[in-house]
């Protein structure tokens, strides 16, 4: 097995995540799909670090995790406050910002 297979796996996971963002309406599931995309990228970064024999990729993956954590905290807080006022967690219901 070649270690570059990890990269192909990462590409596939990323695409699945992206499609998930496009087709799901539940904001929380959309968020999960975004997390999946971030995780896929992390896998790539770790593999790159391995291919280059250094740790920079791992450190960047670590930063991605931190940023993802921050993003989740804020994103879920926003979803909660939207849910409080609109009684809905569907991303399609929040469509006031339009023509």
């Amino acid at each position, binding site marked *: 097995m070649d270690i570059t297979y990890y990269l192909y796996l990462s590409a596939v996971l990323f695409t699945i995540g*992206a499609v998930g*963002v*496009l*087709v799901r*309406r539940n904001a929380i599931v959309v968020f999960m799909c975004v997390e999946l995309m971030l995780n896929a990228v992390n896998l790539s970064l770790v593999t790159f670090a391995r291919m280059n024999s250094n740790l920079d990729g791992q450190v960047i993956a670590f930063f991605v995790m931190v940023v993802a954590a921050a993003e989740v905290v804020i994103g879920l807080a926003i979803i909660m406050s939207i849910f409080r006022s609109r009684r809905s967690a569907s*991303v*399609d219901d*929040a*469509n*006031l*910002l*339009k*023509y």
Partner: protein
Amino acid sequence: MTSTTTAAVQYAHATGVFKLTFLLILLPAIGAAVLLLGGKRTNAWGHLLGCAMPIGSFVIAVIEFFALIGRDGGENRQLDQHLFSWVPVAGFHVDANVLLDPLSICFVLLITGVGSLIHIYSIGYMEHDPDRRRFFGQLNLFVAAMLLLVLADNYLVLYVGWEGVGLASYLLIGFWHHKPSAAVAAKKAFLVNRVGDLGLSFAVMLMFTTFGTVAFDGVFNGASSGHARTGTMTAIGLLLLLGACGKSAQAPLQSWLLDAMEGPTPVSALIHAATMVTAGVYLVARSGAIYDVAPHARLLVEIVGGVTLVMGAIIGCAYDDIKKVLAASTMSQIGYMMLAVGFGPGAYAIGILHLLTHGFFKANMFLGAGSVMHGNNDEVNMRRYGGLRHVMPVTFMTFAFGYLAIIGMIPFSGFFSKDKIIEVALDHGGASGWIFGIVAIAGAGMTAFYMTRLMLMTFFGNKRWPRDVHPHESPKVMLVPMAILAAGSLVLGYLLILGGSLQHFLTPSVGPSLEVGAHTISPVVLSIITLAVVAGGVGAAWWIIGRKPVAAEQAPNVRPYAHATRRSLTGDAVNEAVFMRPGQYLTRALVYFDNRGVDGIVNGFAAGVGGTSARIRRVQTGFVRSYALSMLGGALAIGTTVVLLRVGS
């Protein structure tokens, strides 16, 4: 043409106490920053800080002055301090440097010295103004900008200071911006100055294209090396003159100065009498090396000086507004200075001499006028004064010193400086020498006339103040600066001319003071002639105004020339006819064209865009998922393009 700048200009590095030069600028700049940004919490002590900063600069300036005297003459007295690289672009390098030389230290002492006194005076004058802190902040800003102007060692930094004083002047003229007249006057000053600033900026650009540098030493060495074409040098000289005219209120850009009197009186004293308006004289004197190789530009400097000298004097005879008379007198006196620096090598020091003495006695008189206004409910019309010498004795005494100085009475300071200018003019030789000499003598006579008129109408004669006004003497905090300036008006001229001290001191900056040509008239005889003319002016004033009571109102029906004089020699009318009306017509034509032609195209296009947009905007559905889809589609498109380009290449 005598070239006095044969040796290449070279500046020594600042060491020791001269490393403090940047503090001169920094202190008032800090003061301005603290006062203008500090808000209300600095109200309580703002005026004290505002005074402390220029005083601090003055102390440093005095120390540096004595250190400068202690050094050998020549290059050793021109000290350049490198602060930082301001514009380090390939091929264009401008350093933010300060240059301390005899010329700039003279200005620094004048600015900080007179400036400190006026700051102190303002504590009393502005005591009841709710915006006193802002006033001091802007005054400090002015001092900082003016010091930057005179301490710059290249034209670009000078230009920064030049614009800085313009800004400060604008802010301070419009200090009482709730008065429409003040707001309009500030705008007018700003706009007229802009015309002059344009000249200066073009001059700087032309210098850069000609010499590849804007530093003083580079430009002056390039000018005296004779490589540049005379036409170019004349152009630079004329553009610099335009800048000088704007800042120094010389014809034809003189009109703003009379209106600038809308500002508080300390501002008129500091900015529009003692310092900022003399920046044009400084510019011409500093750029002597350029005018040395541009004789035509030099002649025009003389003409501008001579014309403004007479214009200012005539206008001064007509106004009843005490401050406007003094403003017209300032124009006239700066005309004298311009005339002097226009005569070129040998006479620069004379112009600077008159500048320094004028800075003292005119600031003194303005502060006196402020004191008079302070005691008369801010009344400026001299027809409402009269007989004030009894109620305001100290103001009267200090004002009288300034008065005697400006009319050139021996031994007051104006006598020495003005006589020298007349002497230089006559010694210049040829027709121009005679013309300018006679003009200068006539100007002295007119000065005597209108200043005597001012004195008579203000301090003598019948009491004409309204019943609800009770004139009173001003507080000590105002009187002490006036007294110091009055003392300066008395002794400064003699001190500076003693043994040619100022001329010798200024030699490294502006070249030696040479006696050009033979004396046309012996100096002693000339002094007697001048004094006789002055006495004639004083006598005429007494004959016309002093003998009978002054009317409380201006005479309505006067001959056309008097009418024109009252309207500052139709200066504003000329501006309107020559610039404003054609400008208006052009604007109207452009508006018509704009409405019909341009708007037709633009509106049609806009309607087209609007129609299309109305259809396209339906794409904005508000659904986040649609947007995400287009994002992913876009990423796909870009990625595909990149990959295909890679494969293709």
